[in-house]
């Protein structure tokens, strides 16, 4: 029997989610085709705000890569718009003249930004905030212009305004009502929010109605009904969205505000379904992701013939993704004669909480400043719990775990990615997951907005029971419960700049940290901000603070830099002289082909460096140490490539780069692999006309053979891949995690997939170059700095007895 043809119009979040659900249920039932107007694979629209705010790159927000479509045999037509649906012949046609038959059709065309029909709205410099194109337009404008105006102070408008501020523009936000986010908040919360955002630099014009957009071809500003005017080079309309129903309407599919569907996402036309922001279900049109995913599940079950109760509507909650402000609201927000409310307003701390109670049941909540209770309230409101239940639980400090225990199996935990409690619990049990990060990796839960993190932790605790605490070793160290990723996110989001500040702001239990978190934070801060971060000597291990390797008796060793393991007679003489003069205990060759001078006294280090006049290697740093090379084509009879030259080039380029842990490289020139690249962090083997790159090898405690990353032709490509690979490790590795465990954790396929994209490699290399540009050669710096000399290298010798 030929497969049924399933056709999807709209390559967005809802449509693809539905397809994912179908693939889970019946991977082989359909031949799937997808049309999408946008020229990208399926991406996470929610994260556009973060892209604009500068925390995320467009390339980071892809949800399903091109490869995913291929792997699942899905025919995708990106950048192609469906313009007609022939309901009787069951064929759609596109703007590129293609015709495609279907057995089942899903319409998931989403929404369009609502552009107010103002005079001048068609001028250059007016944009909505809906897709990658809009986002890029704003970024583009910010490079040339200074003043932006955002019309609408709802979620989108405020997120756009924050982004424009981050892009260096001055921002006026115009709102027609007298307080912000009036659809989600009440007046006290709206006012608190306004105060907070004003402190961040936003300027608000409230109770203002725009009459006209001024300017010739390009916009120059806004005029309001009251006659007042302001200047602006860019105008962002964020006044709402409009379900994109034109296609459905023109083809006689029943539409009200959205395409009308029943509980099984069926339109009134046979074999045509609709899902997402373009639909209307029980008179509701949703503009958030959580409901769309629930709809997708119902739709998939219906398509696959799996019995289900259908979609029943969703209680939604909203959160503002602007750093430094915690706002949460859900359910009913306005009081009326049938409701009573509980309000707690703490002006001093700037927190506000309102609970709406209807017939003794929780019906809605608004939280400002402290939103910890948000997910719990949402869950109680969903099941219309008695308000007493919440209040009593508060008294008895009901644990999160007991709350999640009561949730039904199919309740959604992560709204953004549509992950249910059941999915998470199953994954924890069947795959032995122990940490939030692992759950994130396996199920996608909390991969988007992160609101559900605490619920996921509660689920871990509830599912693992006693195992949970013991295994919760994911936090950076004992001073905090936050994981590396959480800390990094907070650093970025809150713009933290030194270790003490991180510890302070993120509530470290030990106010000065410990020997684990100090160097880790110091590394992360430097990695995130290589040019401005001021390295903290006191947060470094002694080897890195003194740039020499401490030995068991408190003496140090010096390893002069010898690129690629190559030296010459002049340098050898200098080394021999220095060894005599400073009376070194032993001269030894290292595993990385360098000369080690052991047993040097701390106070002699600076003089010795000055005498040597050579960089002193980085043989002790958490970062690139040596590049070991074989003899190669210059001398060896087997050599096919100049491995020595390649090694020197690599060492010169990456010397001094820091990493989560030490890094070793090796280059050989034929499969005999004399430089032993199979057990290096990066091992390169030159073959006739090809370089093979192996990564994640380790010859240390846990012997691991490297995996083949790629084969490339030229030396330039070697540099490019190594640069991208090292930078990706620098950005995603846990401090003190060697590449071998890092590759195991991420999976070599993942690393390959990430680096396979040329654009990604370029971006990684760009960031690598910035980090490289900030590196200072430490030895001459020490020699020339009296203060460092005195503070770090001097020993005080008291011979005579003082008074």
């Amino acid at each position, binding site marked *: 029997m030929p497969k049924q043809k399933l056709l999807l119009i709209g390559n967005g979040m809802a449509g693809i989610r539905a397809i994912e659900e179908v693939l889970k249920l019946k991977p082989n039932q359909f031949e799937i085709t997808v049309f999408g107007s946008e020229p990208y694979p399926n991406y996470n629209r929610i994260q556009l705000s973060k892209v604009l705010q500068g925390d995320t790159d467009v390339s980071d927000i892809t949800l399903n890569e091109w490869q995913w479509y291929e792997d699942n045999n899905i025919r995708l037509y990106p950048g192609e718009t469906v313009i007609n649906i022939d309901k009787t012949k069951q064929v759609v046609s596109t703007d590129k003249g293609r015709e495609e038959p279907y057995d089942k059709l899903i319409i998931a065309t989403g929404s369009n930004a609502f552009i107010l029909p103002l005079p001048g709205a068609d001028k250059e410099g007016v944009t909505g905030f809906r897709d990658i194109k809009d986002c890029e337009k704003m970024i583009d404008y910010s490079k040339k212009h200074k003043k932006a105006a955002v019309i609408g102070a709802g979620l989108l408008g405020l997120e756009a305004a924050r982004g424009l501020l981050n892009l260096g523009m001055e921002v006026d936000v115009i709102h027609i009502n007298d307080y912000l986010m009036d659809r989600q908040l009440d007046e006290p919360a709206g006012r608190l929010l306004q105060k907070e955002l004003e402190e961040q630099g936003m300027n608000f014009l409230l109770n203002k109605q725009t009459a006209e957009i001024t300017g010739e071809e390009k916009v120059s500003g806004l005029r309001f009904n009251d006659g007042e005017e302001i200047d602006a080079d860019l105008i962002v309309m964020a006044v709402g969205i409009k379900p994109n129903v034109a296609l459905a309407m023109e083809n006689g599919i029943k539409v009200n505000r959205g395409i009308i569907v029943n509980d099984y996402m069926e339109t009134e036309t046979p074999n045509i379904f609709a899902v997402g922001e373009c639909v209307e279900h029980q008179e509701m049109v949703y503009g958030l992701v959580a409901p769309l995913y629930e709809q997708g599940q119902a739709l998939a079950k219906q398509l696959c013939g799996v019995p289900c109760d259908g979609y029943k509507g969703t209680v939604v909650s909203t959160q503002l993704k602007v750093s430094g402000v915690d706002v949460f609201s859900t359910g009913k927000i306005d009081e009326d004669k049938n409701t009573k409310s509980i309000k707690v307003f703490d002006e001093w701390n700037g927190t506000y909480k309102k609970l709406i109670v209807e017939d003794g049941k929780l019906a809605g909540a608004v939280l400002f400043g402290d939103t910890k209770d948000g997910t719990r309230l949402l869950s109680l409101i969903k099941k219309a719990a008695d308000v007493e239940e919440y209040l009593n639980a508060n008294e008895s400090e009901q644990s999160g775990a007991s709350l999640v225990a009561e949730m039904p199996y199919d309740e959604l935990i992560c709204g953004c990615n549509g992950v249910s409690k059941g999915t998470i619990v199953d994954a924890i049990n069947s795959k032995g997951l122990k940490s939030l990060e692992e759950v994130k990796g396996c199920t996608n839960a909390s991969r988007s907005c992160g609101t559900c993190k605490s619920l996921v932790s509660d689920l871990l605790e509830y599912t693992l029971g006693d195992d949970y605490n013991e295994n919760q070793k994911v936090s950076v160290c004992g001073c905090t419960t936050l994981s590396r990723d959480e800390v990094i996110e907070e650093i970025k989001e809150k713009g933290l700049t030194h270790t003490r500040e991180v510890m302070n702001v993120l509530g470290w239990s030990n106010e000065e940290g410990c020997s684990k978190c100090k160097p880790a934070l110091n590394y992360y801060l430097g990695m995130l901000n290589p040019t401005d971060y001021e390295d903290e000597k006191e947060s470094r291990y002694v080897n890195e603070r003194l740039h020499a390797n401490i030995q068991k008796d*408190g003496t140090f060793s010096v390893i002069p830099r010898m690129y690629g393991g190559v030296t010459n007679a002049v340098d050898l003489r200098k080394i021999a002289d220095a060894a005599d003069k400073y009376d070194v205990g032993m001269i030894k060759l290292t595993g990385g082909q360098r000369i080690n001078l052991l047993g040097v006294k701390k106070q002699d280090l600076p003089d010795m460096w000055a005498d040597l006049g050579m960089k002193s290697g980085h043989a002790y740093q958490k970062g690139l140490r040596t590049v070991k090379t074989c003899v190669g084509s210059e001398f060896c009879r087997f050599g096919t490539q100049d491995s020595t030259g390649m090694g020197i080039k690599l060492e010169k380029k990456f010397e001094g780069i820091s990493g989560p842990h030490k890094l070793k490289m090796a280059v050989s020139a034929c499969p005999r692999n004399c430089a032993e690249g199979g057990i290096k962090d990066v091992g390169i083997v030159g073959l006739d006309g090809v370089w093979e790159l192996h990564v994640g090898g380790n010859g240390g405690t846990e012997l691991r053979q490297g995996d083949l990353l790629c084969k490339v032709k030229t030396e330039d490509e070697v540099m490019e891949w190594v640069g991208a690979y090292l930078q990706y490790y620098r950005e995603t590795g846990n401090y003190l995690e060697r590449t071998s465990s890092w590759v195991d954790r991420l999976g070599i396929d993942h690393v390959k997939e990430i680096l396979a994209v040329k654009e990604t490699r370029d971006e990684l290399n760009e960031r690598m170059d910035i980090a490289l540009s900030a590196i200072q050669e430490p030895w001459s710096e020490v020699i020339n700095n009296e203060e460092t000399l005195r*503070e770090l290298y001097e020993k005080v010798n008291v011979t005579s007895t003082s008074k």
Partner: protein
Amino acid sequence: MEKTQRRIFVGNYSELPKKLGKTVIIGDQEVAVFKLASGDIRAIENRCPHKGGVLAEGMVSGDHVFCPMHDWKISMVDGKAQAPDEGCVQTYTTEVTEDQVYVLMEK
């Protein structure tokens, strides 16, 4: 018998590096002198009770120093190694007058 103490000048307060240790050799003894984040001065024997690590090179956190050799955590107040490790180092009283830092040692 009453013990007498020597006051030994070990350097200027303003010249000691903050949150780091300094090695001071007094006769045949090595003392690690620390200036804490709080600005207080502490002095302890520069020998870890574990395997003799030089504590002056350790990482400082509040009143504790982490030995650079095997990461034992030593209190600079009473010299005790923190659990699960056991052991103790000698501590010394310090004095700061104007910009001068002194360590007090028994005669």
